[in-house]
């Protein structure tokens, strides 16, 4: 009952709880291990590489933070990314004879990705809120649908962007400002806006209220359905943004694009301290979660201490540990 009142006297000086410190410490430990194992680890090249690769999952995970905070879940984001990538490539290839290689066709591709993402997110949100179907079921369904659609569009193979276009589009992944590549810049912007919205804006408060108790939110003049719908729509748009960054990297999409991204994004959100059943979320925590997952992968690749094939196992252990830490924190209040 009164377990909350623990630490009451020293509330001004008390350390942040383990659920806040845990992910930060884990990240620092990983950086330290990496630096000891390989001198190139802290080099600009490697850091840029890790951050740029984190950006796709990271951008999606920021949207996922809102969905989970509002008490939802979205399993379809990986397939959705693959489908949007495929669609984007098809649209751009089709428009090539008309528009030619240039900025307009790139903008067309980007618009396609954003609109497709928005519509896909709205569809998920509509089925979940208006029709009242479980989020798990809806997004499990759309996950299968998008994956199958991209396979069908690619006729079982690979959809490739026209070579000339690809060359023109490449800088969106590889170039940047002052040596910081575009995916990192966009990721940073998404994170900053996301953090402000989550912690300072009415929408973030409404998400947390909805996830914490749907009934209380309803009785408190929060439009529960609209809030939930907005989180899915926002996630869809962010999947579109991530795809815009992803397509120039390889210039192709296939049935294996974006496989397991949804689980990585959800894992990052949970490691970051957002509560899986909703009601509490923090965007900066999600960023730490994404970085932790990327660094494990990176360290295993740079060192030969542990086989990189064990990457998934180590990530799995970390996810479970994160949830145990969360529970300890909750028990203590």
């Amino acid at each position, binding site marked *: *009952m*009164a*377990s*909350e*009142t*623990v*630490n*009451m*006297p020293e*509330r001004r000086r008390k350390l942040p709880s383990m659920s806040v410190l845990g992910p930060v410490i884990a990240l620092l430990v990983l950086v330290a291990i990496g630096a000891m194992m390989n001198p190139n680890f802290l080099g600009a090249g490697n850091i840029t590489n890790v951050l740029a690769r984190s950006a796709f999952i990271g951008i999606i995970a920021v949207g996922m933070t809102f969905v989970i905070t509002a008490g939802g879940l979205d399993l379809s984001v990986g397939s959705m990314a693959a489908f949007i990538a495929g669609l984007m490539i098809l649209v751009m290839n089709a428009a090539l004879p008309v528009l030619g290689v240039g900025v307009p066709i790139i903008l067309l591709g980007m618009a396609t990705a954003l609109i497709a993402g928005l519509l896909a997110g709205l569809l998920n949100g509509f089925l979940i809120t208006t029709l009242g179907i479980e989020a798990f079921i809806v997004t499990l369904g759309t996950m299968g649908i998008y994956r199958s659609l991209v396979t069908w569009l690619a006729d079982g193979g690979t959809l490739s962007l026209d070579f000339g276009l690809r060359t023109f589009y490449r800088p969106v992944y590889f170039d940047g400002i002052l040596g910081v590549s575009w995916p990192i810049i966009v990721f940073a912007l998404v994170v900053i806006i996301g953090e*402000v919205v989550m912690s*300072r*804006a*009415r929408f973030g*408060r*409404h998400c*947390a*209220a909805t996830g*914490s*108790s749907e*009934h*209380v*939110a*309803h*009785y*408190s*003049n*929060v*439009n529960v359905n609209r809030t939930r719908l907005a989180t899915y729509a926002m996630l869809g748009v962010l999947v579109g943004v991530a795809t815009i960054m992803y397509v120039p990297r390889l210039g192709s999409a296939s049935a294996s694009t974006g496989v397991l991204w949804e689980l990585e994004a959800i894992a990052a959100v949970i490691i970051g301290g957002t509560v899986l059943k909703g*009601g*509490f979320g923090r965007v900066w925590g999600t960023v730490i979660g994404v970085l932790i997952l990327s660094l494990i992968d990176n360290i295993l690749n740079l060192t030969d201490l542990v086989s990189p094939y064990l990457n998934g196992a180590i990530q799995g252990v970390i996810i479970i540990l994160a949830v145990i830490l969360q529970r300890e924190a909750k028990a203590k*209040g």
Partner: protein
Amino acid sequence: MTEPVLSLRNVHKSFGPVEVLHGVDLDIRAGEVLALIGENGAGKSTAMKCLAGYQPASSGRILLDGEEVNFASLHEGEAAGIVLIHQEFNLAEQLTVEQNIFLGRELRRGLLLDKAEMRRRSREYLARVKCRVDPDTPVSKLSNSDKQMVEIAKALGRDARVLIMDEPTAVLTNAEAAILFEQVEALRATGTAIVFTSHKLGEVKQIADRVSVMRDGMVVQTAPVRDMSEDQMATAMVGRDVSDLYPAKAEVAADAPVLLRVDGLDVPGFAEGVSFALRAGEILGIAGLVGSGRTEAMEGLCGLRIARADRTEIAGQSVQIRKPSDALRHRLCYLTEDRKLRGLLLDKGMRENLTLQALARFGGLLIDQKAEDAALTRAIREFDIRAGRRDVRVGNLSGGNQQKLLLAKVMQSEPQILIVDEPTRGIDIGTKQQIYAFLSDLAASGHGIVVISSEMQEIIGLANRVLVMRQGRIAGELAGEAITEEAIVRHAMGVGADPKERAA
């Protein structure tokens, strides 16, 4: 006098550095009903949890038949014949009534469950508490009062030597409470020791043999019930005189403007043709049995559930209220009867809860957290909210403080018309007095107030005029001297109203 079955001796209990029980002594005897009374936060629930082994005491001794015991868990307590019925039900919602009654001690025949025997006994226990639910009904489909009866049926099935009940009648109607008391008396006659808490002193007087009064984590008085009047109990609980519980009723001026006029409000399945008017400065009571559609009608009026009205006027203007924000825009606000499920986010702090409903008033695109903090400071002062610290989780506040916070929360929208549903359910008498005074002041300052309540005394003590609902319709209206318990009951039960009692 018989030896106590179960005793607490100088029991202290701390949560972290905060001690909530300071040396409690309690004796529970076979064949006797002990009432434990006290304000919210006095430590009644904690004392009961220590008794049942649900929480270990920090220091002190717990004696069972004179032998010191240390229950490591609730199961050891139950094995010793001590059953605790929680304030919040401890039933598995998805399981059926029968499965719940035998949960954890299912009867078996060989390897398989003995369903026939469990069915037979479930029916027997349910019949003893006169509960007419089918043992196959999932608990999630039951009303709160049926759940309470199932809890008691479950305790019957455990052959409890000591039965501990935390506010068993809080969710029961008077008729259901009477059934519960019959069972309590039957159990007492068979030698069971019974402890219960209640905020209703009338029922303490009626059913208990002895009463122990707790205040601030200590037992301040224990006496046979026949030696204490209800007033003396209340005074002992609060530590001051509370005989003037209700503020004096102010007269509503005959020319006071009509703030709210409702014509032919229908809430499908719950209420039909509800029409009434509310004047500025008036407190309108809505009485009726639980399930008479009182709550649903008012929720429908405020756009919280689907409803239709021939005409709704606020301050003389015809308005359409389809969703909660419409009601708030017209400065009409509803305070829910269920503060835990619908009123407050128990996982969140006081600040987030206080401003949630009126968040648009705090900052524009971004929330102005300074303004929120200032509002919390004001609310804590104005409503006398007693929390250990400002960032306490609201779920850890006592019921009375939660209710005050909830009231402060709805007041953030600055309503002109306030509908309060069971404003004092399950809270102590001192806090009740504060809430009554607040509502009375609010009416005096020209607001219109509707009070829905199952507590007759509350309606009689507060309302200028009373509507009695029965089966979704307004069965009668009473005003002034005609507001009596008997008149309300007659209307609520549908016994032909005496024409003399009709309000002019």
